[in-house]
C-alpha cells in the first residue's frame, strides 16, 4: 500500500499521464503530416486571384439562381417532413421507458446508429445512383439523413418525459397504444416540433451542396460555375446561399424560442 502511494506520487510528480497523452498526440500529428505530405507549397497568387474574382460578384447571374435556390428550400422542407414522420415510430421503439425488451431496443438503436454514420453527401451520391439525377435523389438523401438524426433526438426526448400520466393511464386499464396517444405524445409535441425546426436548418444548409452530385437544387450551379472558372458567379451563388441560410436560421430560432 505504501509503495502504491509512492508510485502514485511518482507518476503524478513527473506528470506521466499528461506526458503520455502529449506524446501520443504528437505521434498522431507526425504520422498524419507524413501521410498527407504537407510540404506542398501554397500558391498564394492563384488563391488571391481567385479571391479577387470572387470579390466582384456578377449580379446579372442572380435571376438564374432564384429558382434553384427555391427548389433547395423545397427539397429541405419535404426531406425534413418525410424523415421526421419516419422517425416517430422508430423513436418510440428505441425509447427505454416504452419498449422494455432490450433486444428489440438494441436492434433498433443499432440500425439507427448505422444510418447516422453515413455522411449526407454520401447518401446523395448513393441516391443519385439509385433514383437518377434530379431533386428526387436529394429528397431521398435528406429524408434518410434527417431520419437518422431526428430519431436519436426524439427517443432522448421520449426518455425524459414524466412517467406519472402514463402510469396513471396504465393503472386505469389503458393499453400501450392508448398510453402513447394520451400520455406520451402530448408531452413530446413541443420538443418534437423544436427538433423538427432544428433539422430543417441543418437540411437547408446540406441541400445547398447536394446538387453538386446531381441531387437537385442550387448545388448543380456551384459545380457548373466552378468548372467554368466563373468565380464571380460562384460568389453570387454563395451570397444567395448565405442569405437563405441566415433567413431560415433566424426564423427557425424565433419559432423555437416561442415553442420552448
Amino acid at each position, binding site marked *: 500500500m505504501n509503495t502504491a502511494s509512492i508510485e502514485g506520487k511518482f507518476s503524478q510528480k513527473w506528470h506521466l499521464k499528461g506526458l503520455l497523452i502529449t506524446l501520443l498526440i504528437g505521434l*498522431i*500529428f507526425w*504520422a*498524419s*503530416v507524413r*501521410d*498527407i*505530405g*504537407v510540404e*506542398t*507549397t*501554397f*500558391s*498564394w497568387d*492563384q*488563391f488571391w486571384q*481567385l479571391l479577387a474574382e470572387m470579390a466582384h460578384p456578377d449580379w446579372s447571374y442572380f435571376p438564374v439562381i432564384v429558382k434553384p435556390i*427555391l*427548389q433547395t*428550400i*423545397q*427539397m429541405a*422542407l*419535404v426531406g425534413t*417532413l418525410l424523415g421526421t414522420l419516419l422517425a416517430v415510430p422508430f423513436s418510440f421503439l428505441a425509447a427505454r421507458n416504452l419498449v422494455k425488451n432490450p433486444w428489440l431496443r438494441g436492434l433498433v438503436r443499432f440500425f439507427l*446508429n*448505422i444510418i447516422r*454514420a*453515413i*455522411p*449526407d*453527401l*454520401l447518401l446523395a*451520391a*448513393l441516391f443519385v*445512383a*439509385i*433514383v*437518377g439525377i*434530379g*431533386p*428526387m435523389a436529394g*429528397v431521398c438523401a435528406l429524408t434518410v439523413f434527417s431520419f437518422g438524426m431526428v430519431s436519436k433526438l426524439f427517443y432522448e426526448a421520449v426518455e425524459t418525459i414524466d412517467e406519472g400520466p402514463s402510469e396513471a393511464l396504465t393503472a386505469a386499464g389503458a393499453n400501450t397504444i392508448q398510453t402513447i396517444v394520451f400520455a406520451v405524445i402530448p408531452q413530446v409535441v413541443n420538443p418534437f416540433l423544436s427538433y423538427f425546426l432544428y433539422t430543417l436548418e441543418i437540411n437547408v*444548409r446540406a441541400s*445547398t*451542396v447536394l446538387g*453538386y*452530385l446531381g441531387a*437537385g437544387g442550387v448545388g448543380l450551379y*456551384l459545380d457548373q460555375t*466552378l468548372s467554368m472558372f466563373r468565380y464571380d458567379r*460562384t460568389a453570387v451563388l*454563395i451570397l444567395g*446561399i*448565405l442569405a437563405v*441560410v*441566415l433567413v431560415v436560421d433566424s426564423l427557425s430560432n424565433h419559432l423555437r424560442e416561442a415553442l420552448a
Partner: protein
Amino acid sequence: MQMSKEHGWRRARPWLIGLAVVLLYVWAFSGIPMNSIKSQALEVTHSILDGLFHPDWSYVYTGDGEDLIAALLETLAIAFLGTFFSAFLSVPFAFLAAKTKKGFQFKSSLGKTILTIIRVFPEIVLALMFIKAVGPGAYAGVLAVSIHSIGMLGKLFGEAIENIDRGPSEAIVAAGGSGLDALTLATLPTVLPEFMNYTLYRFEIAVRSAAILGIVGAGGIGAPLIFALQTRNWPRTGIVLLGIIVMVTVIDFLSGKIRQHLV
C-alpha cells in the same frame, strides 16, 4: 368588444398556422417531380444491398497504398490535422465573439457575424478553392476542414468563455496581475476542458466531412467511393461504405468515452 376580438384571434390562430404550414408544403411538394424515378431504381438498390452483403474483401489491404485501409487512414489524418489546426485558429475568434459585458458590444457582434459567415460557407467550395491553390490531394482537404471548423468551434468556444466565473480573473487583476496573467492563470485553465470536449466533438464531425471531401478531389475515402459508384462496381461500393460506417462508429465511440472523462 376588444375582448371578443382577442378571443376570436386566439381561436383562429392555430387554424391559420395550420393553413400556412399546409400551403407551404403544397408549394414544397410541387417543386419535386415525383415521376422522375428511374425505372431500374429497384434493381440498383438490390445491387447496392447485394454489394453490401458481398463486399469486395480483396480491396481492404493490397499493400500498394491504393487500398481501403490507406484511404481510411488518410481520411482520419485529414480530420485530425484539420481539427488540430482549427482548434488553435478558433481561439482568437472565440475571444472576439465572446460577450463579456452587459448590453451591446461591437466586438462580440462582429465576431459572431464572422463566425456565422464561416459556418455557412460550403465546405466543398472551400475545398475547391484550396485545390486551386495547392493542387488536388489531402492537403487541400486539411485546409478546408481547418477553415470550416473555425465557424463552429469559435462559436462553441466563445459560449464557453461567456459562461465562466469571472471571479478568479478579477481577483488576479485586483492583486496587481496583468491582463495576460488573468488570461493564462484564470481564464484558460477554466475553459480548457470544455475546449477539448468541443474539439473532440468537432473531430467526430470532421471525420464525416473528410470522408466526402474526396468527391471533389481533396483526398480521403471519397474519391474511391465516387469512382466505384460511377463504374457501378457494387462490391467495391459495399466495402467502402462498410469501411466508412465502421470508421465513423469507432471514432464516435472512442471520442464519446474520452469526452465522458473530460466533463
